[in-house]
């Protein structure tokens, strides 16, 4: 049987094509592969499910064993968030034309260019910055690249990084910056915010996140911006865009580069496969010159009133100049950018404000509800979406909750649990968590 995915495997066509080429067999095309490199046996792989229905059964059997957050009450966050995904987001990103396209020209792929231009433009409004990249892989990469951009821009090779970031992200930053950038950690204050550090002229940047790993909203951004600028450094801020309907955009208090992950904007948790990173700056040529990612911009066409698009300042990239470009560029996470654009267009300014207000209020409600049973850390700070609690045993608490159908949070250590509350958690959900915590303890 000719496999449904391989039309020219049909013997008749195959013979016809070989005849047209004048080749006796496909083997001829492999003439350059030396005999000693040839694998002279079939690959040792499981027997296939050629019939689609058999494959479906297999996959349903395999993945049906998982108990997703749709079948439990989940308060897991810590870098991947269960915000509500409007159906239109999924509709748009599952369109064949977007899902299966790649890298056509701004003509036959006009739609992709416009959709991504609109995404970066909406992000620009949210961030109050004029330059936003076509997404890089994820927020980790965005932070790493933002710091490298700061180093290249300032000509320095030291960065001060807030300790209030996830261990995983720090691991990525260390590896990514390792060869030539020195990373110093700024400690976290008792209030859960970055402690205002000492700085000198050797630093390229201060990097902090808001909300930070504890869900704490950093309030001293302006002070830190002034400090950085006073020493010729940049302020680089990691911000979750979902918060920016209510929280001040970092640019407003002096951030020079803003970066983060857009998974919260209309993208499912996807077992960690829903990430995409943004990096934003002002329209300042020397800083724009340091972006490795693609930047899309409007360009006129021969026809008045027609919007064309193209690559802004392509010469920066490794596509243009290999190792002489900035870092590298390649396939990253464009479709999530389009999706986030759809999300922002659906939400509009009101929706973004409301989702922010709802998350703030429900987070606070959850903190208050849990505070009756456990110690809530940094109770005086403004929290967005996450907060940490101290418990006798993280493992015991979480196991107890799990028995009650609740994924109670992410253990930060043996006695600290990070709880995530979004607009998808109803007040009743939070009450259920609080009751279960009480029972479990």
């Amino acid at each position, binding site marked *: 049987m000719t496999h449904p995915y391989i039309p020219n495997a049909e013997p008749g066509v195959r013979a016809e094509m070989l005849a047209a080429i004048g080749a006796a067999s496909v083997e001829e095309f492999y003439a350059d592969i030396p005999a000693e490199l040839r694998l002279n046996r079939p690959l040792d792989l499981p027997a296939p499910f050629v019939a689609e229905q058999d*494959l479906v059964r297999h996959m349903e059997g395999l993945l049906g064993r998982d108990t997703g957050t749709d079948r439990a009450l989940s308060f897991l966050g810590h870098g991947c968030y269960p915000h509500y995904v409007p159906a239109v987001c999924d509709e748009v990103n599952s369109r064949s034309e977007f899902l299966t396209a790649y890298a056509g020209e701004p003509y036959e792929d006009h739609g992709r260019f416009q959709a991504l231009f*609109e995404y970066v433009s909406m992000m620009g409004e949210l961030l109050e910055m004029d330059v936003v990249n076509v997404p890089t892989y994820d927020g980790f990469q965005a932070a790493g690249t933002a710091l490298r951009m700061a180093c290249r821009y300032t000509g320095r090779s030291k960065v001060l990084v807030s300790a209030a970031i996830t261990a995983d992200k720090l691991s990525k930053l260390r590896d990514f910056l390792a060869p030539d950038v020195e990373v110093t950690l700024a400690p976290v204050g008792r209030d859960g915010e970055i402690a205002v550090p000492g700085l000198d002229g050797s630093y390229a940047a201060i990097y902090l996140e808001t909300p930070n790993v504890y869900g704490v909203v950093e309030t001293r951004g302006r002070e830190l911006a002034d400090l950085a600028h006073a020493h010729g450094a940049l302020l680089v801020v990691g911000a979750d865009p979902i918060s920016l309907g209510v929280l001040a955009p970092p640019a407003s208090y002096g951030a020079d580069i803003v970066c983060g992950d857009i998974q919260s904007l209309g993208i499912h948790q996807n*077992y960690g496969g829903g990430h995409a990173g943004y990096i934003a700056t002002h329209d300042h040529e020397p800083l724009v010159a340091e972006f490795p990612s693609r930047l899309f911009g409007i360009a006129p066409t021969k026809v008045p009133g027609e919007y064309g*698009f193209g690559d802004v300042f392509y010469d920066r990239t490794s596509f243009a100049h290999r190792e002489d470009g900035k870092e590298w560029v390649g396939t990253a996470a464009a479709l999530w950018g389009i999706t986030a654009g759809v999300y922002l267009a659906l939400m509009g300014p009101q929706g973004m404000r409301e989702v922010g207000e709802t998350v703030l209020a429900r987070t606070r409600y959850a903190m208050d509800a849990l505070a009756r049973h456990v110690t809530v850390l940094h109770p005086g700070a403004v929290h967005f979406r996450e907060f940490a609690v101290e418990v006798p045993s993280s493992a015991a608490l979480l196991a107890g909750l799990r028995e009650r159908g609740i994924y109670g949070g992410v253990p930060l250590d043996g006695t600290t649990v990070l709880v995530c509350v979004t607009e998808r958690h109803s007040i009743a959900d939070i009450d259920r968590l609080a009751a279960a915590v009480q029972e479990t303890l």
Partner: protein
Amino acid sequence: MNPAESFAKLPVAPKPPLRRFHQARWDEPIIFELSSPGRRGVAVPEPGAPAVELPDAVRRAAPPKLPEMSQLHVLRHYLRLSQENLGVDLNIDVGQGTCTMKYSPKVNDRFAGMVAELHPLQPEETVQGVLELYWRLERMLAEISGMARVSLQPGSGSAAIYANIAMIRAYHASRGESHRDQVITTMFSHPSNAACAKTAGYEVITLMPDAEGLPDIEALRAAVGPRTAALMITNPEDTGIFNPRIQEFVGLVHEAGGLACYDQANANGILGITRARDAGFDLCHFNLHKTFSTPHACGGPAAGACGVSEELAPFLPGPVVGFDGETYRLETPAASIGKVRPFLGVTPNIVRAYAWIMALGAEGLRQVAETAVLNNNYLMHRILDIPGASAPWGRRRVEQVRYSWQELTEETGVHSEEIGVRAADFGVHYWTSHHPYVVPEPFTLEPTESYSKEDLDEYAAILAHVASEARSDPAFVKEAPYNQTVHKIDMTSLDDPAEWAPTWRAYVRKHLA
């Protein structure tokens, strides 16, 4: 109904040789221009709890100027844009050479959806299914590459290359050989090999092709030495030519104490035919969004897989999935380079790649390879029939070919890029090739196993037609496109800091103020 007089007769005449294509053209405004105050596309629940008063320092002062639109209007705008885009599902997508544009089975998208609501930090016992899938895919890719272990964490091919370099760096460091500060690559290896190596702190040495189009082995001999950290090489290179002396290349590097790293982003033509490890490579990577069929998604999310030998396995990014015969667990390799991305990997694509292999099996993968190579050689046969087209360095090709319009350009003044733009007037497109253009006026075709003979004939006929147009009316070709969503774009402003508009905000400020 009231039929008017007849003006046409049945039967309908046969279709002309070329498709009379016109792309959807909706002449859409920019989304901000569709905004009207007070509208919205989706509602958010009320807090149901007391509001939190934000301190001034962190309260947003003015609402973001996002568009305000009802739901239908957001949807409509994006659906229209989607129609203004090509994709594998719509066109004969053989023209994005080295990008392996193959059919991504629709059923696999359904499987990808099955992990949508999994959180990456769920307790392991609640995700045994997806962990098993990771483990099984790792085992299959290990078999396909001959490597000992495989990380599925990287988010793309380039990210996998970077992870490989990071492992190389860690490996040498672990042996006290951090003085090795050079990476050797080839001009026809993907630019990310050079660029990632550079980002990782290496000096990059690039081997140029020799008279046969293969990387110059003498240049390699001259380059290797105590400073050599690794060779990073594609094979077949972007030319489509398989380097028969690849084992010698690997040997030379090994002798110098370097590692050999194989860019197998696109292994489509050699699945089940030859394996990275069997040629002596220490590391390799696959692009799951190429060879293993996950969709390109307008440029990601993608997925890369890093395969390594036993010796390099301790350095893999963590976590990887372990299996004790009963339970699947997340484990961090002993000397792990750490994270290259959040969590375990781009799971929806891991799922798709797994399902794709499971739909084919060993025999199917071999058919994929053989058919991809057959298709490539057949298309080459057709393309070389077009006067003005050539394929430098003879006819030996695996799954792709870097062609040249040099002769045509010399004759007509029409450049490869212009021919590609005009070809898109017939509903197909192509990509010239990576800079710098070592092959003059290049274009790169890779037909993969997904396309039919009829598709290849149609594609060749389009290029033949455009080439003949270039001869008869070069100006016409240069002024294309005509049948696409927009007309010829003036790109000059995009490189001018005073003019460029990388967001609507910048555009309004610079051009509409």
